[in-house]
């Protein structure tokens, strides 16, 4: 089954960009990616820029309205997403728990199974 991981950080929890801690942290992601590639589960993913640079598009009446910022006014910050393909939810949970974001306690991952149109 395919699962999308939505990575959400607690603001301020992650090490500052460019610091030594950050370099270690980034290396941990590298290791995770390598393991996932080796296990053949990696189907895609991207880190995304911070919420200040988000643009939300919504239609009101006939007009497309833009909003400068993310759609949800939450404290959490979406960092990016991954797409993995594994046998079941337990496997997905195992991979998500090993993600540096979760493992270091810097944030959470929401696991969303992909819609399977072949199932009635």
């Amino acid at each position: 089954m395919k699962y999308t991981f939505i990575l959400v950080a607690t603001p301020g929890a992650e090490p500052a960009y460019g610091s030594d801690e950050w370099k270690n942290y980034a290396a941990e992601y590298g290791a995770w990616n390598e393991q996932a590639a080796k296990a053949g589960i990696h189907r895609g993913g991207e880190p995304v820029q911070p919420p200040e640079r988000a643009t939300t598009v919504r239609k009101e009446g006939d007009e497309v309205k833009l909003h400068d910022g993310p759609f949800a006014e939450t404290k959490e910050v979406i960092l990016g997403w991954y797409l993995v393909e594994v046998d079941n939810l337990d496997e997905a949970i195992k991979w998500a728990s090993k993600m540096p974001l979760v493992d270091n306690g810097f944030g959470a991952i929401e696991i969303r199974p992909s819609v399977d149109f072949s199932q009635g």
Partner: protein
Amino acid sequence: MSARLLSKEALKRRVDDAYATEWGRSVAFLLRLTRDIQIAEDCVQDAFESALVYWQRDGVPDQPGAWIRKAAKHRFIDAARSSRTRQEALQRLRLLHPPNVHKEDVEQLDTLIKDDELALIFLCCHPAIAVTDQVMLTLRTVAGLPPRDIAVAFFAKDEAVRTRLLRAKRKIRGAGIPIKLPKSDEIEKRLHQVFAVIYLIFNEGYLANRGENATRPDLTKEAIRLTAKLLELIPNNNETHGLLALLLFTESRSPARITTQDTLVPLDEQDRTRWDHDVISQAFKHLERAVACELPGRYALQAAIAAEHSKATDYAVTDWKTIVLLYDCLLEIEDSEIYRLNRCVALSFSDSPLVALDQLAELEKGALPESHHLISATRADFLRRADRNEEALVAYQLAIDQADNTAVQKFLQRRILELITKR
């Protein structure tokens, strides 16, 4: 097969008996084929309905469980063969002929079934499902309680229970929660989730048991049955023995716990001759197995505490020193406010109410709002026993204001009355 014809009532009883022992087992077995809890339940339900007809005509089979499972399996296969989708298969479920159950069917099926049954229990108690849903799903799918009975037991609406069950089953299918035994290194952790669900079921029955509605299903008995089942499937697990001992010790007191006027009788005032001593001796047997290991778990320790009360002929001769030590062990496993509060109570007897008052003051500092009334009531009790009656009255009144349960408030008001008349 016993061809003797049974009366309608006798037959109904035999089918009900088979239902009680074979439901969960049969759903677990069918799940291997259907991979969907709802379809498995529907097949088994239909098999039981057919049993009413065929067992009336042909007599009750020697192996009712094997009969049900084979009938349910036939039904699923027939439906699956002539259908393109599960949905269509479901609509076509009809049992045309009763199954012939052979000896080898019984043996073959029974060896497979234990793992299936265990996998079903772990599935229903999967941590990715909301805890309330785990509880209801376990009662429905493993214990076989109809949704309307679950609704009655939880004072919930029938529709709300059905919606929850449906949502949980859809999550299992949709999110790909695996229908198989957890890996061996995961079993211990997952087993604790199963214990937690069983404990919640027991507590729901224990706390809500006011006797006002005799038709309410007995959740404490269901919880005990589930734990015994777990012990049958994973024998020799110390903590399962511990949980069963704890539930049995608690259950043994139920005849003395509630008066005919439906009021709660606290432990120190219960008539101990009315405790169920058969149940107590069963509990002791399980406790013995539970503590036969290096580090007894939290249920074993709680059972050991309950055992101290069962050993004492009355409240005054309880071995409070041992109970304090057992709470110390429990607190090492898990720091919980309720353990600390109970330790204070034990200390007030093993040492003195004044010593316990100091510890209670410590505990009160960071206490959760929902424990405020318990702490106030406990402080009032310590003050009363230390003959500081004026302060005790104030504390009792505070506890009444903080409590939101009328039974508790009534009990506390009685204490106030006793204090005033003593003055």
